[in-house]
């Protein structure tokens, strides 16, 4: 009660402390939201444009990349439409080989896809920046190549290239392909090592008309992932079925390093906040030496003086925290509409690591409690020192 009145008596001071609590909460929440925005952006790209939610392979395929480790299209086509939560799926045949033309050769992974399904699962059509997303006339042996590789090998739509790889019987086969288009995905390193052809064309060369080496599934929502994974595993016990976390370990690496750095910097921000509060409160105690001395002199219990000051900080934190959170929420709302464009700093380089250059900050609601707890805790802890200082005042000296 007394604390509450004290707050109003010294409005400037109360405002100063409250403002630092507001700033602290805002800073903590804002930084977390930037980091989460980065992480979520990366995961979103990974799922929606690279690996999808789930993938199935023959257990040996990802170790050896040999064509004999395949399963059949018919099997997946009869099974997958029944999967719970399915949004889209794509079946790919794959081979590792060489892409060659007059200016040299390059090792690539050849992906045979159904153009329509591949577009449905990862929006592939939009990534084609020049040329066509497979010619609709259905001419045979068309190929899509990533921008980086196209630049390196001086390819333009219409160029001729030769693909060489091992077929199902371990024999070397070659095929001449014509470049239909050049694509640019958010993950430049992936672009360099992957080329896309029609599945029928690749399978014809492999000698396995019905082969599928990779089945990828996009779900309607993330929450259903475990259920769908289990369902698929029960129905295909002979296949290796994985979610995006195990398929794409580099995403997990990025997520962990984001987690670590966000925690380190959150702690630093909290320390900065603590210093702000301690300093202001200490000043407040100094300023009130006379007042506190008087209270002690007229017989107020030391413990009550201690609580008086701690209570003051708690009240300020109680008001400041929500205000800071609302401010952070507003900032994030504003920024998440427009996005925080880092290309100015980073020179448009984000995408070379599979990030988009624009961060859409996301306020992690599940971490809000933590921020409130940490800010309030910091405020409380930092009020103890000044309060303790006040306790040790000697009334007689203080009033002088």
């Amino acid at each position, binding site marked *: 009660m007394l604390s509450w009145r004290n707050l109003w008596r010294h409005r400037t001071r109360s405002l100063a402390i409250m403002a630092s609590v507001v700033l602290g909460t805002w800073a903590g929440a804002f*930084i977390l939201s930037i980091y989460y925005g980065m992480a979520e952006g990366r995961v979103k790209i990974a799922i929606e444009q690279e690996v999808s939610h789930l993938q199935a392979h023959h257990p040996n395929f990802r170790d050896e990349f040999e064509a004999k480790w395949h399963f059949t299209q018919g099997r997946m086509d009869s099974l997958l439409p029944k999967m719970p939560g399915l949004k889209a799926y794509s079946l790919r045949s794959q081979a590792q080989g060489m892409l060659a033309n007059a200016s040299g050769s390059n090792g690539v992974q050849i992906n045979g896809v159904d153009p329509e399904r591949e577009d449905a699962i990862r929006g592939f059509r939009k990534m084609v920046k020049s040329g066509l997303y497979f010619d609709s006339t259905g001419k045979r042996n068309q190929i899509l190549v990533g921008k980086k590789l196209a630049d390196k090998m001086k390819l333009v739509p219409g160029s001729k290239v030769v693909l060489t790889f091992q077929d199902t019987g371990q024999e070397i086969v070659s095929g001449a392909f014509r470049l239909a288009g050049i694509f640019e995905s958010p993950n430049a390193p992936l672009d360099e090592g992957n080329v896309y052809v029609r599945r029928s064309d690749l399978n014809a060369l492999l000698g396995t008309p019905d082969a599928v080496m990779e089945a990828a599934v996009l779900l309607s929502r993330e929450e259903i992932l475990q259920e769908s994974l289990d369902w698929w595993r029960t129905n295909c016990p002979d296949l290796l079925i994985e979610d995006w976390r195990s398929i794409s370990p580099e995403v997990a690496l990025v997520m962990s390093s984001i987690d670590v750095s966000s925690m380190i910097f959150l702690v630093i921000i909290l320390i*900065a906040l603590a*210093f702000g509060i301690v*300093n*202001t409160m200490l000043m407040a105690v100094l*300023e009130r030496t006379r007042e506190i001395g008087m209270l002690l002199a007229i017989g107020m219990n030391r413990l009550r003086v201690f609580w008086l000051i701690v209570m003051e900080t708690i009240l300020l934190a109680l008001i400041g925290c929500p205000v800071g959170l609302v401010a952070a929420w507003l900032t994030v709302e504003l920024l998440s509409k427009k996005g925080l464009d880092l290309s100015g*700093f980073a020179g448009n380089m984000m995408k070379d690591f599979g990030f988009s250059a624009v961060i859409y900050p996301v306020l992690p609601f599940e971490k809000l409690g933590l921020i409130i707890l940490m800010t309030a805790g910091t405020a409380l802890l930092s009020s103890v020192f000044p309060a303790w200082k006040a306790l040790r005042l000697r009334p007689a000296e203080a009033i002088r």
Partner: protein
Amino acid sequence: MLLTLAWRNIWRNRSRSLITMASVGSAVVLATLTVSLQKGVFDNLIANVVSFYTGYVQVHRVGYWKEQTLENSFQLSDSISKKVLETHDVQYWTPRLESFALLSSGEKTKGCMVAGIAPESEDMVTRLKSKLVAGDYLTDSSRQVLVGEGLAKRLGAGVGDTLVLLGQGYFGSTAAGKFAVGGLLHFGSPELNERLVFMPLARAQEWLDAPGMVTTMVISPVNPSESGAAAAGLHLALSQNEFEVMRWEEMMPDIEEHIRTDTASSKIILGVLYLLISFGIFATLLMMLIERRREFGMLVALGMKKAQLARVVLAESVLLTLTGCLAGLLISLPIVWWLRERPIRIGGETAKTFEKFGFEAVFPAAFEPNVFLEQASIVLAVGLILAIYPVVNVLRLKPVEAMR
């Protein structure tokens, strides 16, 4: 006179001055800590990635990087190695003869990158020995090869098995040879793990029919952060018509870009931190003004000119900010040093994820004089700008109201 007054004022109320100084000092400590940690994380990442294979600096014959063939190799003479070793900032170096080849075991054939190395000096530059997971490390005369674990798995080969290497030798001759697997190496990066084969340099020269030739000299700088200086020194020491000197930034542009993007987000964090810090300093100044209203009012009422008073207050603030910055510097030095020697270590799931990639989940701080000076001067500037506020406040002072 002015300074004396300010000096006395500071000492008159020691606790208050200490608090103001502490707020400036803590600002310096926090800013240096943040930047040092950020820098440290990057340096550590670079050190990790560079030690995978590339090294900080490489010397090749002009044109090798663009066209990596044996035709672009060079004769390793004593005069070149002497020149390299004598270059300032170069600690040691190791030669390599690199070539692409086909590696077969039984029915299976995979493409690979063969590196002929000098086993001892290679270990000093890239700690190759520590990557050995099975078998024995190479000696200069051994007839065996070391194979990346992933590559061996794909070939279904283990220690003791015989592999056939088929490549193109110097001047287009066919190079074929049988080698026993002497050991397996684990590399964090899957790309290297599934591609690399090592053998002693002499053996590689013999196999490729390229006696005395090397393609690459990998250079270890004395101080990793001075790799630029080492590269520049080598550039001057070696004939530019004959040799190209490349830094890791040029050889691995994607890593450099990753660091640049991370720097962008850390700039935002730093901005937020500065905001908090400035507010902390501002709050103490504000409290100081509230506390001294009466005093200032009295002085002006007694006839002290406001301008004079303002100058005294300014002098006080400047003195306090300066000493605060200095104190902050002195305190941050041991803290940052300690965080470099005893780095933050992360355990659990995160550590496992990092280990998969061959990183250790430790985050040492960087200890660089520049960082301290830079951050201290930024805080100093902030403090000095904020010191304007009390001056304005004093100039606007109404003595009668203030003394009430």
